[in-house]
């Protein structure tokens, strides 16, 4: 294990976050605050409680997930795409590092950043509504697993993309809609039965449901299924990454 390489990549990626602290931390916090003002205070005050939870508090886990997913993907995809774009990838490819070490460095840093961000959003939310976390262990577990999984997805996108547009396409066209339709702002039990069934094909439903359960012990699907689904996504992303390195896909000629 080339531990110095993992450290070097991790440190480099974290330093990049500090250089861009405005866009990495401030802007997600601002947008979350806006959601609270609009949905929590303005509209939320007219919505009755959902399963005994005030609407403002109900949306907190969903909002954290929304930021966690989008930020994990954008952090990790940019982290690996930029060296490819700038040409500095030669150093990574010629270094005595294994694919696993590269992934730990990049994905680890991206996940760390989005976990920190998730916790900041949680703290921000606590300033607006009363939050209690029923299962802190599971809350952290979902947070960490989701951050890692979607950072891996971001890593995959960063290798696949060959332009800045492609880097935006998947987060914008797939992940954001899935998150909005995955129960961020509502319980899928509120939907007609047909759409409930459709929603079960949305992987994000399981993430948000499990995460919300760790706060309020209410969920759209069984928690065990949520954990299992999260692990399945993790395994799928891992498989794609290992295939990419094995074939040198878009990395090596």
């Amino acid at each position, binding site marked *: 294990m080339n531990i110095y390489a993992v450290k070097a990549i991790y440190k480099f990626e974290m330093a990049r976050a500090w250089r861009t602290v405005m866009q990495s931390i401030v802007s997600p916090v601002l947008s979350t605050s806006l959601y609270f003002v609009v949905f929590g205070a303005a509209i939320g005050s007219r919505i009755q409680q959902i399963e005994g939870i005030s609407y403002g508090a109900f949306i907190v886990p969903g909002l954290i997930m929304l930021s966690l997913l989008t930020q994990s993907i954008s952090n990790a995809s940019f982290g690996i795409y930029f060296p490819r774009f700038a040409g500095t990838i030669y150093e990574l490819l010629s270094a*005595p590092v294994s694919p696993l070490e590269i992934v730990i460095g990049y994905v680890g840093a991206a996940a760390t950043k989005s976990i920190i961000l998730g916790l900041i959003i949680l703290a921000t939310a606590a300033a607006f509504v009363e939050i209690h976390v029923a299962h802190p262990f599971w809350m952290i577990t979902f947070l960490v697993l989701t951050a890692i999984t979607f950072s891996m997805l971001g890593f995959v996108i960063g290798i696949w993309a060959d332009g800045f547009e492609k880097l935006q396409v998947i987060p914008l066209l797939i992940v954001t809609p899935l998150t909005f339709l995955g129960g961020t702002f509502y319980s899928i039990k509120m939907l007609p039965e047909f759409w409930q069934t459709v929603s079960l094909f949305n992987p994000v439903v399981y993430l948000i449901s499990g995460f919300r359960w760790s706060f309020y012990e209410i969920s759209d699907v069984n928690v065990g299924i949520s954990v299992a689904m999260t692990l399945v996504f993790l395994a799928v992303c891992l498989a794609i990454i290992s295939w990419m390195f094995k074939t040198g896909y878009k990395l090596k000629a």
Partner: protein
Amino acid sequence: MTSIISVKGLSKTYQSGFQALKTVDLDIREGEIFALLGPNGAGKTTLISIVCGIVTPTTGTVTVAGHDIITDYRATRSLIGLVPQELTADAFETVGNSVSFSRGLFGQPPDPAHIEKVLRELSLWDRRDSKIMTLSGGMKRRLLIAKALAHEPRILFLDEPTAGVDVSLRKDMWEVVRQLRASGVTIILTTHYIEEAEEMADRVAVIARGQIIVVEDKQELMRKMGKKQLVLHLSNSLGAVPEALAAHNLALSDDGKELTFTYDTQAGRTGITALLRDLADASITFTDLATSQSSLEDIFVDLVASTK
């Protein structure tokens, strides 16, 4: 001398179908400066990229200090430093951090003293806290060398090290390379500037269209392939080479004022004495004479042309 890099039957065909290398065999000796000379697109960068692990070979094997570059990549890559052709470095990072990053990436524990030494040798120490985007082209080139040396490699690849570098900086760069060689580092440089190979290299390989045409000790190559010419500036112009001198390998310039005698430096008898005697007998006088030796450039042009 033992060889530190051994390339056997190496070929590379890119997905596009372009064959960049056709069966290359090559041995690099420990401690030498080896120049890989060839026109653009000859396969120089592909060859280097394969040894460094950036490009996957289609066939063949490469060993570095006895280790296979694929099955034992950690060992081989730890020994190698690569300075790429393109000036690519992370624009927002500082010089010092960037060099420290390279050292870590290549598996070495932090060593601020070594980083300082490398930066000082390359006259970058004063700029250690500057962002890379504020550096000039020459400084960026030196930064890439510093990054490649950060992990104390035994082999250094310099891909077109002086492309776009001004004359004085080029001389500095050559000095740096000589110092490195003196410290025991094996250096492989690619260039299409013949002057550079002539100035620096111990051995030269000429590569064209994915094939190594010749690998030779530089002096040996120049001696073997080199021709010498004697140019005589005549007092009175001639209409043609006189009958009496036809036995000599002579050429007359268009204006009839210069006679050029080409001879082989290898031959025991160059024929100069006989030529001068025959000139005197024919009453041809000259005002000046000059000799010239073909440079590596001429040799190179001949070699590349001969493979067409």
